[in-house]
């Protein structure tokens, strides 16, 4: 048994252990922390599967942002835990759930063992035309060129999610500022961090988005890092959340999908198809779309974390 395989067996045991730990903890707060650890162990699996782009996104969004979102919710819902714990289902339901879960997992196991050999792959096709897009990273090529329609629709889905979250607001505070007002000691460590870290973090986020064209990275992890910097300044009370009626905010939210859609429609005239790029201008057009996307991803992820408006904007 090679060292690499031994490592993979240990990693599998670790992920399973953390997953069981996440489910078995009694308190929500601890379970959410365990879930963030679970996301980080999955990041290692993604690296072992030769998918560094996915690993970056999993660490930033799957573990980091989702963990922070659930942690904040667990803190606000702490008073509800005791009453709901009494609603735990009895032994019969537990056994039935275990049987059902085992059947589903067993079915997937059979599917995994029956995967076709040789495996079907679009990798040769993706590499063959990659030079025409001016990109060096095949995953970015899929996201921005071959399957650009998916990425465009996903931007719209995120935008709709922001609108859906806003629609949960009390009508008296519509147009106001999302989330509670955060107060931190002005000379404390958090406020210090919130002033010193964002300049570095924003540069790191832009860098990761930029190198995504040729190396692991891209608009999603890059935009998430920028969103995290924004959230840090909000939580430290250095900068309040903007009122959702703010024109600048709404512009930042829509610029990504709008530029993407405009470039896509131009494709009809300059490249014969929706979302097609003419070979000579493919790279500049993709960079233009990505710049708008990074801004929109950062703003929309930050707003999804901040929640519906809770206070008047004045």
């Amino acid at each position, binding site marked *: 048994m090679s060292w690499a*395989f031994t490592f993979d067996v240990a990693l*599998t045991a670790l*992920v*399973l252990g953390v*997953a069981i730990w*996440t*489910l078995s903890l009694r308190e929500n707060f601890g379970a*959410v922390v365990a*879930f963030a650890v*679970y996301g980080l162990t999955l990041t290692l699996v993604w690296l072992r*599967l*030769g998918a560094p*782009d*996915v690993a970056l*996104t999993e660490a930033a*969004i*799957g573990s980091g942002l989702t963990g922070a979102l*659930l942690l904040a*919710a667990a803190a606000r*819902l702490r008073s*509800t835990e005791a*009453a*709901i*714990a009494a*609603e735990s*289902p009895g032994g019969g*339901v537990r056994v039935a*759930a275990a049987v*059902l*879960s*085992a059947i*589903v*997992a*067993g079915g*997937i*196991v059979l599917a995994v063992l029956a*995967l076709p050999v040789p*495996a079907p*792959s*679009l*990798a*040769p096709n*993706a*590499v*063959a035309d990659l030079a025409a897009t001016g990109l060096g990273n*095949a*995953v970015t090529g899929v996201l921005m060129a*071959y*399957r650009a329609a*998916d990425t465009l629709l*996903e931007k719209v*889905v*995120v935008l709709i*999610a922001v609108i*859906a979250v806003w629609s*949960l607001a009390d009508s008296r505070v519509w147009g106001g500022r999302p989330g509670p007002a955060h107060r931190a000691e002005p000379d404390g460590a958090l406020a210090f961090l919130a002033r010193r870290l964002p300049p570095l973090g924003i540069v790191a986020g832009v860098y990761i988005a930029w190198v995504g064209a040729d190396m692991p990275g*891209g608009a999603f992890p890059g935009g998430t890092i920028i969103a995290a910097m924004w959230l840090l300044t909000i939580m430290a009370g250095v900068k309040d959340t903007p009122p959702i009626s703010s024109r600048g905010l709404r512009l930042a939210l829509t610029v990504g999908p709008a530029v993407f859609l405009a470039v896509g429609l131009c494709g009809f005239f300059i490249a014969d198809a929706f979302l097609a790029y003419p070979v000579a201008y493919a790279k500049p057009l993709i960079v233009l779309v990505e710049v708008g996307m990074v801004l929109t991803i950062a703003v929309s992820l930050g707003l*999804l*974390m901040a929640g*519906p408006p809770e206070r008047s904007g004045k």
Partner: protein
Amino acid sequence: MSSVTLFGLLAALLVGLGLYGLIVHPHPLRKILSFNLLGGGVFLLLGVVARRGAGAGLAGDPVPQALVITGLVVAFAGTALAVMLLLRLFQESGTASLRADALAGKDAKKVDR
């Protein structure tokens, strides 16, 4: 057995574990968390498919990998919406219970007093 098959089996077990947690945990926040755990298994399955499709100098088929990146962002958006709905329920009713009688019972108590 190869590492890829091993991770495929891991993905299947994670889906099973997540489904079990989704059913038996009564707290909605834990249901959301279990659902995300289940999602991690589904994404991993796509990762296994991608790795098996390695070729042309790439460590994995980039198409399923790109699907996972898109999926992770959409999963976060869905999770955020679910959490905000839950917080709104708590704000309105003072409970986070999903049982139909939890809200009704609370109102009845108010009338008794």
